[in-house]
């Protein structure tokens, strides 16, 4: 579903991603863990075109989003084409990024209406179904400012799902939440995983990574240090940096 090969990304002099490769299969749930500044969020943001890579190849469902040109610099597909390819992916942010001037229901139907040209009437039943799924149907007519962080994040998940993506990307979806609110968001994500959604989750929730992910990737200093099944990575990490990180995180 996703193929990222030899990705390089610098912020000025700082190498944030240094030859990172990541492939994700259909239905796979991949958790990316690692200390702050390890490049894990940047990797996800490069995948969703929020950051541009310097070198490397990105393909989504076999369609090339970016590839190296002969000079060794990454070249992106044309804007419209890139937008179409990226529509295969939905993304959920640490800070939700809901649209404050729209109600919960309007947040969910906005992109299908504007991007896909769906009529309001046609999309509302689907949107209500998604809101029901994340347990927020009764909040459909309130504005986001009246919601708790956990509720906001669940709306954000429903909003992303309304575009019917084949892949869901989560960028630290519970990091901005009070501890007692993380459970409801993780539950919604777990439910998605059970429905065999392809997911890439950047997270600090080790328990979630252990229980839900099929594969866990440990990143540090812009590189993938180690990856494997949750059991192998959490129970017998091979690399000293993984061991040190897990010791401090668990």
């Amino acid at each position, binding site marked *: 579903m996703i193929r990222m090969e030899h990705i390089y990304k610098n912020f000025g002099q700082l190498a944030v991603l240094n030859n990172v490769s990541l492939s994700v299969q259909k239905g796979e749930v991949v958790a990316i863990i690692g200390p702050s500044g390890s490049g894990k969020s940047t990797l996800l943001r490069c995948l969703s075109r929020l950051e541009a890579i310097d070198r490397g190849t990105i393909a989504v469902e076999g369609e090339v989003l970016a590839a190296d040109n002969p000079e060794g610099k990454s070249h992106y597909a044309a804007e419209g084409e890139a937008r179409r390819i990226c529509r295969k992916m939905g993304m959920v942010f640490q800070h939700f990024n809901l649209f404050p001037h729209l109600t919960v229901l309007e947040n969910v139907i906005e992109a299908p209406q504007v991007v896909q040209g769906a009529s309001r009437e046609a999309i509302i039943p689907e949107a209500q179904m998604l809101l029901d799924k994340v347990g927020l149907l009764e909040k459909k007519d309130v*504005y986001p400012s009246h919601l708790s962080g956990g509720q906001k994040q669940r709306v954000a998940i429903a909003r992303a799902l309304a575009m019917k993506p084949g892949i869901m990307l989560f960028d630290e979806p519970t990091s901005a939440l009070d501890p007692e609110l993380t459970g409801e968001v993780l539950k919604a994500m777990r439910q998605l995983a059970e429905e065999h959604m392809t997911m890439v989750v950047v997270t600090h929730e080790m328990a979630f990574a252990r229980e839900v992910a099929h594969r866990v990737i440990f990143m540090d200093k812009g590189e993938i240090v180690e990856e494997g099944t949750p059991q192998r990575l959490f129970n017998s990490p091979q690399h000293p940096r993984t061991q040190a990180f897990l010791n401090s995180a668990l």
Partner: protein
Amino acid sequence: MEYILSIIGPMLEGTVVTLQMFFITIVLSLPLGLLLALGRISRFKAVSGTVGVYIWLMRGTPLMLQLLFVYYGLPFIPYIGVKLPDFPAALVAFTLNYAAYFAEIFRAGIQSIERGQYEGAKVLGMSYVQTMQRIVLPQVIKRVLPPISNETITLVKDTSLIYVLAMNDLLRTTRSIVQRDFDTAPFLVAAVFYLAMTFVLTWIFQKLEKRYAVYDE
């Protein structure tokens, strides 16, 4: 009282000129200001630089000077020089000047919208135009209403500058009555007229702000 009633007719005629100038200027300068704001934040340096110079010129010279220039100076400019009658000339000067101020208000408003809003729209597949239209600008309007209201009220009073083109707006009409009758009471009546106009504007903007208060950020 009888005296006041007798001068109200000509003063209302002056008010019509003032209001015409005000409304047409607002209708033209708000969209132009928005366009300039988008140009100012453009990633094309030539566009943002040109708009920057324009705004600097318009805010950096007196509105009165611009009025006089459009009316008296423009006809002498090669190629683009046209001799405009007084009303259109004043309209051009007011519109160009106020658009520059509105542009800065809109620019500040647009730049105050968090990057996360653009990112949220982008990952949902929206284009730049869709993002601006549906996500950014609706939120900008709420934020810029107070400063726009300020400028709008200022414009009502700035229209009185057209006296330099010998146009009979509310204030110039009043002044000629004062000079004719040796009585300063018409000034008070004019003040009441201006207050009434700004009162209506204030009320309209309050309504608008209330409408946008349905959501918090």
